[in-house]
């Protein structure tokens, strides 16, 4: 398959079942909601070493937030529910509770309930109080700038992590420009996050390493500087490869995000130095979810 001169490989991205949750951070203005959200989703690029994958899903209009203030929706994905709950609580405590004027609310009403403000309330040292409003419990924790309001729990649901595609370009600036265009479109899709810095990862990995202590190492088949030194997957004109990783609540959400992302890359086309779109997989034996590029773009 070729779109605007860009070859779409007959391959697939291999993804895994994960647990996901969403929280809504509000603040006096969008600036401070965003600061809090950025802190909360920091160091959450990959479950390999961060404990979870997290990112800002989107900015919320005041009319969409529970307290009518500007807000930001953040999502977190982890391999298990216990780990997810731990990450959420730690991040909420260190990054949202501490952030001026912030409040924290559930972003998923259904699913298994996991603590959001439920345990953070003990920071109130006995001065905390709760209000049950329309069946939801909120904790009011006195803090130095006033009161930190946090919903007691949020929902944890089954989700999918590890959807991806690779952008193969003739130069590094061209690969980055294509990924930026893709991310801009993909951020419009609800229920997905692209957890790596700016949504783009330049250090795609393979499973295993020559060093026993490492579970993952550089994906040498896609490293352009190793074209003559390893069993490469790159043609001579490829000088840079970048990857976009997608976590989403459902397969359909990831399908949609991959479609708009790949389309945005293809719109730049071969004339802008984009030569191929490929994807990362492990032979299809590890992950139950397969995102076939050509089917998605058909």
């Amino acid at each position, binding site marked *: 398959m070729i779109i605007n001169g860009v070859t779409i490989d007959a391959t697939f991205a291999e993804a895994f079942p994960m647990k996901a949750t969403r929280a809504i951070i509000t603040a006096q203005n969008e600036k401070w909601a965003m600061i809090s959200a950025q802190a909360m989703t920091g160091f959450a690029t990959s479950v390999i070493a961060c404990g979870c994958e997290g990112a800002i899903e989107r900015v919320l209009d005041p009319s969409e937030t*529970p*307290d*009518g203030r500007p807000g930001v929706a953040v999502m977190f994905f982890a391999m298990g529910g216990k780990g997810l709950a731990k990450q959420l609580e730690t991040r909420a405590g260190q990054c949202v509770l501490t952030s001026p004027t912030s*409040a924290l609310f559930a972003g998923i009403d259904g699913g298994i309930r996991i603590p959001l403000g439920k345990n953070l309330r003990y920071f109130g040292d*006995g*001065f905390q*109080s*709760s*209000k*049950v*409003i*329309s069946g939801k419990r*909120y904790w*009011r924790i006195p803090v130095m700038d*006033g*009161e930190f*309001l946090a919903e007691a729990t949020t929902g944890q649901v089954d989700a999918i992590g590890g959807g991806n595609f690779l952008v193969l370009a003739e130069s590094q600036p061209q690969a980055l420009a294509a990924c930026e265009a893709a991310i801009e479109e993909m951020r419009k899709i609800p229920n997905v996050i692209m957890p790596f810095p700016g949504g783009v990862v330049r250090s795609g990995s393979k499973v295993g390493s020559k060093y026993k202590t490492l579970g993952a190492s550089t994906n040498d088949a896609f490293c352009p500087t190793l074209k003559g030194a390893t069993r490469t997957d790159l043609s001579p004109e490829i000088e840079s490869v970048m990857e976009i990783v997608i976590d989403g609540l459902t397969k359909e959400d990831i399908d949609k995000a991959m479609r708009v992302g790949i389309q945005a890359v293809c719109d730049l086309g071969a004339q802008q130095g984009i030569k191929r779109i490929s994807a990362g997989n492990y032979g299809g034996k590890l992950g139950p979810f397969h995102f076939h590029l050509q089917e998605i773009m058909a």
Partner: protein
Amino acid sequence: MKALTLTLKTSPEQRIDMSALACHLLKSLSVIDIAALTLQCGKRKLRVDELFTIEGSDSQQLIIKNSHDKLDFIGKDLDGGSISVEGDAGAYLAMGMKAGDIKVSGHAGLYAGCEMKKGYLEISGNVGDFLGAALPGNKMGMKGGTILVKGNVGQRAGDHMRRGNILIEGNAGDYCGSRMTAGTIAVMGQTGRYLGYAMRRGTLLLWNQPQLSASFNDCGAHTLAFLPILFASFRSLNSSFADVAQSFNRVQRYAGDMSEMGRGEVLVKL
């Protein structure tokens, strides 16, 4: 099916115990069975059809017409369904209600909504003492649900209240929120003496400055984030509480009762 409508034939001379006519108790009964039920009236037991004319058959929508303030225990332990009272209700209205809704077009007597657990109670007129309170000797009053009173309420509203909302459009008598353990009482009108007497936790939300006891300490003026959410939850009510113009988030906060735990609060609109 048409709502089951009971029209009181004459003003009763004795008080009538209406607890047998809660919707959940009538679910499996035919209209003939309902007519044959007996209600305690003073020291006598009278058949329902001796006291009321009966129309309709949907026992999950009960309408009591020509109601009188001697009809006690209307909707006692109600567990689903709706009761509409056209006229006044006696004492113990919606006592221990678990689910469903009760609307009264007139006034209600003592202990309305006492020990209520869930559901919705709306009274268009005035209400007697001990609204949403605990029965004498008991330690837990209202545990959930919402009570809306469009008129005034008597003394000890929310006594021993534990959870839920009591919304009062009119005035509240003395000892409003006394011995409260938690929950919210909102009063748009004036409040009486000894507001929040011995309250442990909970919120008294007021539109007018009350006369506070010395055991309530001023914590200053604040903008509280939970208030917009609380007011938003009132939007569906047929009440002034649903009016956006009545909502606020800037309050003077008083902590008390310091002679008790001191974890309660009186919030007064600024």
